[in-house]
């Protein structure tokens, strides 16, 4: 069993930078958890703090209920895979995988057993006597994972493990990693700046910004209900539409378009207030007529995304993105009407950025 509990963790660097700001987080046993955010948000710092490479200025870390905040890195029984894999170039693959076992003074036959187990799981048995410089990037990554696995840790920490792979390899590695984690069932925390990766891999995830956690939840929650503007703009391969409008009674006026506000929203806001409407382009489709609940405007740009087109229109000065199925690409300058799906539309407070 290895749950991870983070209580009130704060990390202030000697130069005054507050990398982690009073974080609370709970990660369940066996979960594949992703830490997502832009550079500088603190996700890597948090990972390193969990691993013991950084010490928290304040707060506690509990692994399986044990307070490990002051335990040194080597004694926490966690394994970390670094972005550059950190394979020792002067040792061959087998020696690399074996190295942590040698440090822990496992007997020779135990070392052999573990190395073989890990090599088998990662399908790298045939690479054992090669040197890291002689194998491909994808293979190096597997060796790094195998090395982590050989120590049968309670917790895996992955620091951007896929970012050094080229695009195609990355997708393969992604599926492989997901499957592996499911089979092993060991709690895994992964740091990434790639939101599609986090959404694909994680059981649950957290988005961080400037040392704080902005939202925690499952990928589905993130995609459908981002809790604030930061998360909303961060998640999703295509940027979410975030449009500011003025409240008029029970409606929201954005440019010339008018949208009915759901009950729970209209009771929080008053006429004249400015709020932001958010809706993904995937849930904005072409409507035959104009009228209430529709954006109308001239097509400015179309992007071919394979199965559909991303179409950008100018609706009274507002840029609205929507999708159009393959085969009905509109022409530039054509006037079309976009209707956002009311079920998928969210509203945000302009000042706080939070969901209403």
């Amino acid at each position, binding site marked *: 069993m290895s749950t991870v509990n983070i209580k009130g963790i704060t990390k202030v660097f000697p130069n005054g930078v507050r990398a982690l700001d009073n974080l609370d987080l709970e990660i369940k046993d066996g979960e594949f958890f992703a830490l997502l955010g832009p550079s500088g948000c603190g996700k890597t710092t948090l990972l390193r703090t969990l691993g013991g490479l950084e010490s928290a*200025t304040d707060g506690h870390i509990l692994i399986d209920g044990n307070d490990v905040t002051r335990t040194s890195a080597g004694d926490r029984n966690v394994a970390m895979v670094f972005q550059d894999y950190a394979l020792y170039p002067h040792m061959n693959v087998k020696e690399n995988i074996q190295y942590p076992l040698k440090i822990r003074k496992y007997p020779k036959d135990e070392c052999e057993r573990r190395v073989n187990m890990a090599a088998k799981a990662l399908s790298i048995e045939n690479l054992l006597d090669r040197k890291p410089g002689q194998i491909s990037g994808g293979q190096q990554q597997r060796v790094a994972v195998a090395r982590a696995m050989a120590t049968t840790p309670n917790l895996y920490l992955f620091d951007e493990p896929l970012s050094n792979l080229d695009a195609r390899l990355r997708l393969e590695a992604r599926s492989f990693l997901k499957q592996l984690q499911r089979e092993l069932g060991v709690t895994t925390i992964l740091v990434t700046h790639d939101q599609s990766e986090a959404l694909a891999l994680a059981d649950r995830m957290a988005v961080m910004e400037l040392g704080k956690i902005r939202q925690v939840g499952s990928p589905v929650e993130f995609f459908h209900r981002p809790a604030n503007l930061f998360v909303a703009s961060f998640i999703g391969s295509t940027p979410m539409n975030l449009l500011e409008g003025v409240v008029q009674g029970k409606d929201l006026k954005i440019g010339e378009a008018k949208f009915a506000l759901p009950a729970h929203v209209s009771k929080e806001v008053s006429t004249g207030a400015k709020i932001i409407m958010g809706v993904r382009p995937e849930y904005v489709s072409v409507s035959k007529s104009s009228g209430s609940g529709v954006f109308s405007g001239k097509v400015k740009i179309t992007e071919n995304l394979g199965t559909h087109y991303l179409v950008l229109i100018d609706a009274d000065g507002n840029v609205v993105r929507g999708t159009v199925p393959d085969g009905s690409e509109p022409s530039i300058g054509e006037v079309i009407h976009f209707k956002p799906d009311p079920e998928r539309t969210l509203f945000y407070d302009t000042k706080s950025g939070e969901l209403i």
Partner: protein
Amino acid sequence: MVTEIKAGSRTDKSGNAVLRGGAASFFLSPATIIIIIFLVIPAFWTIYLGITNYRLTGFSAVDPEIIGLENFRRALSDPAFFNSLKVTFIFTIGSAILGQAVLGFFLAWILFGLSKRVRSTVEIIVIAAWMVPSSVVSFLWIAFLNGDVGTLNAILGSQTRWLIDYPLESIVVFNIWRGTAFSMLLFAAAVASIPKSHLEVARVAGASRGQQLRTIVLPAIRPYILTDILLITLWTFNDFGPYLITSGGPGQETELLAIFVYNNALRFLDFGYASSIAAIMLLINLILSLIVITTGKKRSQ
């Protein structure tokens, strides 16, 4: 209930994750000890001795007294000292700055554009001059400059007694020959570090090799130039090597400061005076370093 976490309890003050204070000190201490005992202490001791009248024999050996700036005053009125100073400056400027740096740079620059084979061959030759031990090299030059049958005279068809009639010039040329390798290697690294695209843009724009050199290469390698000049100036200023060729002579014509110190210390056994000269050398070194470093800082602003 909740115990206080000590800040930085497991990474040291600099945030380093791997080296703890204990290991770091352990790794650093042997080097620190040796450097302090055999480098730092002698440096300060030199200054101290410079203000005493310490001699290895006689009364002052038993009971050296601090005679203050007496030694320094003596130096300032000692024509031998000024001669030595003059000789050393000519030697330094001539062989280091004008010689090694310039030659080293041009070698690096020209070889850079030639084939690897040619470059390796020439480099080996130049480096050999640097590598051959000083006592051997000194004799080789004694032979080379020999008045009767030395190779130089054989080539020139003359019978000049170089080491007797032109001793200072001889050791200047000798030192250029001896030390160019370092500058060459340093500038080779410097030139190699210039992004090829910078030079190609200039070439496409029509710049001649000379213009490329002046406007792109030299500015790009300025830090290297300064480092080189600094190091070779100091090394040359303090150099004792020519002693093995001329012993400071004939007379005192090639009595570099290092040789002057040696003569006073281990021949005349006047440790106090010798140390004061050495202390003056240290001071000059300091001034030279400051000059080069501030020149570097100033221009880059």
